[in-house]
């Protein structure tokens, strides 16, 4: 009995040591917390979280000034990831900040645009091109869908169009919920 116990204990120690060694060896050096949070945020830069961009929000989360459920574009998945990263409880998106919407891009009605450049100034990622008095266009690959350009437009010529699925963005579904028989 004793020797069996000893063997087991010895083995347990050996395995523990191996695991510990592995943990030390394979540990990845982390970025500072703010960058890690910022990497999760969607970079829509829409300000719905109440901060002028994702980085400021990330900084606020890191310093404990803001909660993790204030980013509508990041949605539930984003909150989950933040909760995971920070070891906090998941909580649903704060409705005050907005609602999760399918990704859209801004489209400028080129017939109506008066070339006022207001939207250009509003766009956080310089995704709108055009010069004064010339028609403006949104570069749709760069548009984050933040909607910040909608309000400033004096002639309301900007609309948000949901991004359609293409063969390149089409995804296979998660296999039909498996009936996991537990026999």
């Amino acid at each position: 009995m004793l020797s069996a116990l000893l063997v087991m204990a010895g083995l347990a120690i050996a395995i523990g040591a191996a695991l510990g060694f592995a943990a030390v060896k394979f540990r990845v050096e982390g970025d500072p917390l703010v960058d890690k949070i910022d990497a999760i945020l969607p970079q829509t830069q829409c300000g719905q979280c109440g901060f002028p961009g994702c980085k400021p929000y990330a900084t606020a989360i890191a310093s404990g000034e803001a909660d993790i459920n204030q980013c509508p574009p990041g949605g539930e998945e984003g909150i989950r990831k933040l909760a995971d990263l920070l070891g906090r409880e998941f909580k649903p998106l704060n409705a005050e900040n907005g609602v999760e919407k399918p990704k859209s891009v801004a489209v400028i009605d080129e017939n109506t645009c008066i070339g006022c450049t207001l939207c250009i100034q509003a766009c956080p990622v310089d995704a709108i091109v055009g010069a004064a008095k010339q028609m403006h266009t949104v570069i749709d690959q760069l548009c984050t869908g933040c909607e910040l350009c909608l309000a400033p437009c004096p002639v309301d010529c900007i609309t948000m169009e949901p991004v359609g699925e293409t063969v390149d963005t089409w995804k296979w579904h998660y296999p039909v919920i498996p009936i996991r028989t537990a026999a």
Partner: protein
Amino acid sequence: MQRKLFKFNGGVKPATYKTDSTREPIKAVPLPAQLIVPLHQHVGGTPYPLVETGDVVLKGQRIGAADGNVSSAVHAPTSGRVVAVEPRVMAHPSGLTTLSVVIEPDGEERWIDCEPISLRAMSPDQVRDELRDAGVVGLGGAVFPSHLKLKPANGGTDTLVINGAECEPFITCDDLLMRERAEQIIRGAEIMQQLLQARRVLIGIEDNKPEAIAAMQHAVSARAAGSMEVVAVPTRYPAGGAKQLIRVLTGIEVPHGRRSTDYGVQCFNTGTAYAIADVIDRGRPLVSRIVTVAGNVERPGNYEVLFGTPMNHVAALAGIKPGTDRFIMGGPMMGFRMPAYDVPVVKATNCILVGSPELFPPPEPEIGCIRCGECARACPADLQPFELYWYSRAKNFGKAQEYHLFDCIECGCCAYVCPSHIPLVDYFRFSKSEIWARERQKHAADVARDRFEFRNERIEREKREKAEKLAAKTAASRAAASMAAAAAPAGTSDHSEDSKKALIAAAMARAKAQREAIAPQNTEALPPDQQAQIVNADAHRAAIAPADGNIAAQPTEKSPAEG
């Protein structure tokens, strides 16, 4: 004659179901009422349309031009009239649409003028361009543009592999093509050998196709090409996978993410070889292919089908049996269920497999993985599918990638053998597309972050510069004033100052006039509240006017994405 063959691990031996569709020769298909030719039928850029609704086209006329080099052209499969250029449902499991040219045949099948291409008169680059413009892509199912693969490797190409293995059950299009048109395949192989400057050509055919092997051997010996050899390879799915066949014939394993040319090997399907000979010797672009119709049909067989022919038009010739519930493009192991019966035959369509619940019964419900390792023993890529499954199911994609998810060729062997009936490949396809989506998202986020930061910096800089300018100006004017007070005869500078001011005033007036001239004409019929908003905006704009040219010009000036 006995050459040493190599083995790949794993693989399975499902029943082949091949004999039925090989009884009769390749048959022709009567013209359908409409041909729906998708522009995007290959890997790479989507060709742009060269025709418009109402145009009259000839058979073989280019209707879609290759977009860049990694792309391929598309041609009118018959003569007729273009009745629409519009999105149509494509032969893809997603059921999405793609821009297609719809042609109503005139029934005359009038060809364009076909000029054979002289290999001697042209540089290899020109020949490759010709192949691109003739729309030649891999017809084994991968539809990768062939001209891109026909460059000799840096270290020289040792072996050209012609893939006639055709390992998927039911499919016999390559088999029949080899039996009936071996000479032209060999001719195509010769052309490819020449372009690749390959030392030898190995034609791999599974040993369950003795007729094809005999026909090909005959054709090879007739041409007395000493460097060409027909090799019978053991029948074992997926021996026809390019990597597996290369392994069997040469012993070389091409890892995921590397091209076989890096190892001195290049692999083409027999159908591609045949198509290339068509282009070079007869000047005919790729407008049709051999398609197997099998499964739940009365008379399984092979047909020469024009691209764009609706699948049900072809399948009807073989007599669709009652109980049919789906069309599968490709074989039962790797094929995809089609979203509709009338999707067009495209370059990737090697087989229209007519499915029914009797033929392919719905799989039994999935139960827990018992880690029996059957899947790992069957996997030709030497993966551990049960681990991949475990992590895919848990959506732990990082781990799945660590276990080499992307080495999976989706051959289906693992799901074929799993005693727990787990649809393993479904999990892998899901994981892969999810990972790609995330990478796209991450890329977009990174770009947005960079641009946001760049913009913030720019605004900062502008503020700073403005402040500096202002400071300098006040300093200068103060200096000037003190100078003027000190010494009156400095009139010249005074004069220039005045003229500058006048110039600016004039420019502003001009700008104002122009702005008024282009004032929006489409705002008249707006409700009063919106009119008020516009008036407001105008006032606001007037307020910011001096700065606007400045700011507007900035973003286009240098944006990081373009730089």
